[in-house]
C-alpha cells in the first residue's frame, strides 16, 4: 500500500477513537462533569481531527472542525458556560463530525447546507466581543501534504533592486531557547550566497564570557534576487531575541564589501554546511526509495501495541482450544493408566493444565473488548430517536467496561440499535403523557452490561408506560397470530412482540417502518447463541434482557449421560444433584411429573425425551436428578442416567457448520476426542419454548 494511503487509513482509525473520546467527554459534561480536563480532552479530539484532515485537504471536515473547535475553545477558556443547549449542540456537532469523517472516508458528498447551518448555530454562541482574537481574524487554510513536489526553485529576481544588507545583533539570551546564529546564517545560505562580517567586539573581555550567551554580531550582504519574505522567515523565531535590520542597498551602487574578519570560531562548520545541505536536497528523490526501510526502524520506537489481523488471533484461539482438548485427553490417558494422583507425572500434568488455562484466558482476552464503544454509538441513536419523536430522553449506561468477544460486539450493534429505537419510540410516553402520569418529562433509557454466571447480560430498559398488553393482544388477534379466545399469561403476551410480522406501531413514525421487527432482533441474538426476554410492568416501563454466551470461552460443566449420550450441563446452572426416592415423584398429569425436594414440588424434566433421544420414560427408575436454576428459569429437576465427572470444556459452536439446535447451547470435544453437546438448560426446562422452537423449525 502507498505510504500516504496508509497514513490516511491511520487517520480514519484515529478518528474513530477521537470521535469516541469526543462523545464520552461531551456526555460527561452534559451530565455535569466540570473537570477542566474533560473540556480539554473534547477540544483535543476535535483539534486532532482537524489537524489530520488538513493534511489530506479534507476541506469540509476542516472547515467544520475548526468552527467546532473555536466554540469549544470558548468553553475551555471559560468565556462560555456549557449550558444545556450548548452541550446539546456540541453533541449534535459531534454526530455531524462523525458523518463528515465517514463521508470523507468513503468519498461521499456531504450536505454543505448542513455544515453551514451547524456552523452558524455554533457561531451564534460566540460573542464576537469576547471571543479570543485568534478566533476572530483567523482563516484556516488547509495545505495538503504534497510529497511529490521538489524543492521550489527560487523566484526570478525582482528587477532593479539592490542587494540586501542585513545586520543581526543577537540579544544575550538568543541561545536560551535553542536558537543559534550559526544556524541562522546557514539557513540564509540556502537562499543565496552572501558575504558576512562578524563583529566580536563584545567578546573583548573573554574572562567575562558566559558561554550560554550570545556576543557576536553579524553583517551580511545578500543577493538582490532573494525576497524579503524569505529572509524574514529565517528570522521568524528570533525576531524578539535580536535586533535585526534588513534593508536594500542602492541599486548597483553598493560596492560589495570584502569578506573581512570572517574567521569566526564557527567558520569551518559554516563553510561546510551549504554544500552539505545542497547534497541533502539532491538526495531528496533517491532517499525516498529507502524510506520504507528507515520507516520501519523509526516506527519501532513509539507504541507498545500491535495491530493484528483477527484471523491470526482466531487461529491462535483455535490452536489453544486444541491444546486444551489435548491436555484433557492426556489427563484421561494418565488417569486410565493408573498413575497415582501424587505421582510426578500427575503433578506435572496439573501444572500443564493450569498453564493451558492461563494461556487460554490470555488469548481469549485479546479478542474480548469492552462494550463501551458499542454503548457509545447508542447514545447517538438515542439522540436521533429523541429528536425524531420529540421526546426528552436520557441514556444511562452501566457496565461499559464489561468485556465481550469482538464478534459479539459487532453483531450486537444492529439488534441493539433497534431495541434502543424501540425503547424511545414505543417504550417511552410523550412528554404530555409523562407529565399527566406524574413522571418527569425526561424519560430514561438504561443500557447495561454485566457478566453473570458465565454469560453476558445486556439489558435495555425504559421507564415508560410498559407494554400495553390488551393492545398487543388485540393486534395479535387482528393479525391472526393468536385466536381470539386464546388464554395467555402476561409473559406470553409480551413474547408476542417477537412473533414475525408483529409491529405495535399503529402509526408509522419516523423511526418505525424500517422493516425490522423484534422478530429479527430475536433471530440475530439467537444467532449469537443468545436469548432475549422481556420484563414489563405497566406504568413503570419495560426491560429487554439479552443473555449472551461468552463464545469460545471455557465452560465448567458436569459430564452426564442422558439416554446413552454423553452430555454436558453447565455447572453454573446446577444447584445440586440427588437421587430421588420413588415415592417423591408424583404424576400431575399425563406429561407433567414433579419431584418433591425439601418441601417443594419441582417439575421433573425428562431430558432424554425432550431432546428426542428416546420416548418419554414411563417410570423413573434409578435415574439421577440434577437440580438446576438459571436467571430465566425456576428450579427444575433434570433426569439423567449417570454422572461422570466435572470438568472444564472448550465451547465449540454448532452454528458455523450446522446451525442452532433447540435445547443445545454448543458442543465440546471430550477427552476421547468425541463430541459432546452442552445443554441449554433454560430452553430445556421451558417446555413451552422448546415446543415453540420446534414448531418454528418445522
Amino acid at each position, binding site marked *: 500500500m502507498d505510504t500516504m494511503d*496508509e*497514513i490516511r487509513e*491511520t487517520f480514519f*482509525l*484515529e478518528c474513530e477513537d477521537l470521535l469516541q473520546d469526543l462523545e464520552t467527554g461531551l456526555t460527561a459534561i452534559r451530565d455535569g462533569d466540570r473537570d477542566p480536563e474533560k473540556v*480539554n*480532552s473534547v*477540544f*483535543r479530539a476535535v*483539534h*486532532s481531527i*482537524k*489537524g*489530520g484532515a*488538513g*493534511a489530506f485537504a479534507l476541506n469540509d471536515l476542516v472547515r467544520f472542525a475548526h468552527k467546532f473547535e473555536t466554540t469549544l475553545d470558548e468553553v475551555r477558556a471559560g468565556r462560555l458556560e456549557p449550558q444545556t443547549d450548548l452541550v446539546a449542540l456540541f453533541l449534535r456537532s459531534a454526530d455531524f463530525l462523525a458523518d463528515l469523517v465517514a463521508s470523507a472516508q468513503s468519498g461521499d458528498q456531504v450536505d454543505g447546507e448542513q455544515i453551514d447551518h451547524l456552523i452558524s448555530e455554533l457561531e451564534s454562541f460566540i460573542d464576537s466581543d469576547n471571543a*479570543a*482574537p*485568534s478566533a476572530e481574524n*483567523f482563516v*484556516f487554510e*488547509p*495545505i*495538503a*501534504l*504534497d*510529497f511529490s*513536489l521538489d*524543492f*521550489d526553485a527560487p523566484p526570478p529576481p525582482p528587477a532593479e533592486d539592490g542587494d540586501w544588507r542585513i545586520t543581526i545583533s543577537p540579544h544575550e539570551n538568543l541561545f*536560551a*531557547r*535553542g*536558537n*543559534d546564529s550559526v*544556524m*541562522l546564517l*546557514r*539557513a540564509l545560505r*540556502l537562499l543565496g550566497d552572501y558575504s558576512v562580517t562578524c563583529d566580536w567586539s563584545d567578546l573583548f573581555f573573554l574572562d567575562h564570557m558566559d558561554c*550560554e550567551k550570545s556576543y557576536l554580531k553579524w553583517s551580511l550582504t545578500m543577493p538582490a534576487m532573494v525576497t524579503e519574505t524569505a529572509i524574514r522567515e*529565517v528570522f*521568524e*523565531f528570533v525576531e*524578539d531575541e535580536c535586533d535585526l535590520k534588513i534593508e536594500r542597498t542602492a541599486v548597483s551602487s553598493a560596492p560589495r564589501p570584502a569578506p573581512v574578519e570572517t574567521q569566526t570560531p564557527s567558520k569551518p*562548520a559554516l563553510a561546510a*554546511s551549504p554544500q*552539505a545541505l545542497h547534497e*541533502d536536497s539532491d*538526495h*531528496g528523490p533517491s*532517499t*525516498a526509495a529507502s*524510506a520504507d526501510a*528507515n*520507516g520501519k526502524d*523509526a516506527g519501532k*520506537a*513509539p*507504541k507498545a501495541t500491535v495491530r493484528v489481523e483477527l484471523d491470526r488471533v482466531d487461529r491462535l484461539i483455535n490452536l489453544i482450544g486444541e491444546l486444551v482438548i489435548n491436555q484433557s485427553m492426556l489427563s484421561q490417558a494418565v488417569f486410565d493408566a493408573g498413575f497415582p494422583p501424587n505421582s510426578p507425572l500427575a503433578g506435572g500434568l496439573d501444572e500443564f493444565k493450569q498453564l493451558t488455562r492461563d494461556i487460554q484466558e490470555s488469548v481469549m482476552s485479546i479478542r474480548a473488548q469492552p462494550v463501551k464503544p458499542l454503548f457509545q454509538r447508542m447514545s447517538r441513536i438515542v439522540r436521533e430517536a429523541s429528536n425524531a419523536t420529540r421526546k426528552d430522553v436520557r441514556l444511562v449506561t452501566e457496565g461499559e467496561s464489561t468485556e465481550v468477544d469482538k464478534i459479539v460486539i459487532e453483531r450486537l450493534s444492529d439488534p441493539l440499535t433497534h431495541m434502543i429505537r424501540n425503547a424511545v419510540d414505543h417504550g417511552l410516553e410523550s412528554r404530555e403523557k409523562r407529565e399527566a402520569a406524574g413522571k418527569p418529562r425526561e424519560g430514561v433509557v438504561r443500557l447495561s452490561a454485566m457478566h453473570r454466571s458465565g454469560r453476558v447480560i445486556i439489558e435495555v430498559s425504559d421507564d415508560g408506560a410498559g407494554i400495553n398488553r390488551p393492545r398487543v393482544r388485540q393486534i395479535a388477534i387482528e393479525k391472526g397470530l393468536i385466536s381470539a379466545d386464546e388464554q395467555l399469561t402476561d409473559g406470553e403476551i409480551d413474547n408476542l412482540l417477537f412473533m414475525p410480522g408483529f409491529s405495535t406501531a399503529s402509526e408509522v413514525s419516523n423511526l418505525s417502518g424500517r422493516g425490522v421487527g423484534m422478530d429479527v432482533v430475536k433471530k440475530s441474538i439467537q444467532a449469537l447463541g443468545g436469548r432475549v426476554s422481556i420484563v414489563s410492568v405497566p406504568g413503570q416501563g419495560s426491560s429487554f434482557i439479552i443473555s449472551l454466551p461468552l463464545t469460545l470461552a471455557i465452560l465448567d460443566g458436569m459430564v452426564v449421560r442422558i439416554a446413552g449420550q454423553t452430555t454436558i450441563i453447565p455447572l453454573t446452572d446446577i444447584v445440586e444433584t440427588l437421587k430421588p426416592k420413588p415415592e417423591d415423584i408424583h404424576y400431575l398429569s399425563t406429561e407433567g411429573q414433579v419431584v418433591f425436594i425439601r418441601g417443594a414440588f419441582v417439575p421433573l424434566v425428562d431430558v432424554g425425551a425432550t431432546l428426542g433421544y428416546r420416548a418419554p420414560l414411563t417410570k423413573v427408575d434409578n435415574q439421577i436428578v440434577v437440580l438446576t436454576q438459571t436467571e430465566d428459569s425456576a428450579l427444575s429437576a433434570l433426569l439423567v442416567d449417570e454422572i461422570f465427572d466435572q470438568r472444564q470444556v472448550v465451547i465449540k459452536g454448532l452454528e458455523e457448520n450446522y446451525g442452532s439446535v433447540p435445547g443445545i447451547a454448543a458442543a465440546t470435544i471430550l477427552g476421547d476426542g468425541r463430541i459432546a453437546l452442552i445443554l441449554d438448560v433454560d430452553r430445556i426446562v421451558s417446555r413451552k419454548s422448546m415446543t415453540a422452537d420446534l414448531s418454528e423449525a418445522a
Partner: protein
Amino acid sequence: MSLRILAVDDSRTMRDMIRLALVEAGFEVHLAEDGIHGLEVMDAVNPQVIITDINMPRMDGFGFIEAVRAREDYKGVPILTLTTESATELKQRARDAGATGWIVKPFNKEKLISIIHRVAA
C-alpha cells in the same frame, strides 16, 4: 550523520506524517505520544531536535518544553512546537516556556525540513 529528531504528538496521524516526511529526508526519527512519554524517549535517544505538539493529554507541550529546558544537558536543544494556527498567544506561551520556534500545521514536507534546518544541522 543524520540528525536525531524526537517528535511528540498525541495524534497517531500526525506522528505518522512527521515520521514519513522526516525519514524520507534522511533524519532519524523517534516518536512519543505525550509529554511524559516524550521525556522518557528523550532520555533513551538523546535527540538533537525536538518537535512537540501543544495540546496533549497527561503532560502538554508547555509542560514538556519546560521540563526539557530544566535539564542541563538539553538547554540548547532546539524545540519546535506544532500549532494548528498562527495563534500569537500560543506562540508566546511556547516561547516563554522555552520553545525555539514553531511549525504551523498542516505543514508540507519542504517547509518542515527547512524549518528544522533553520535550527539545527
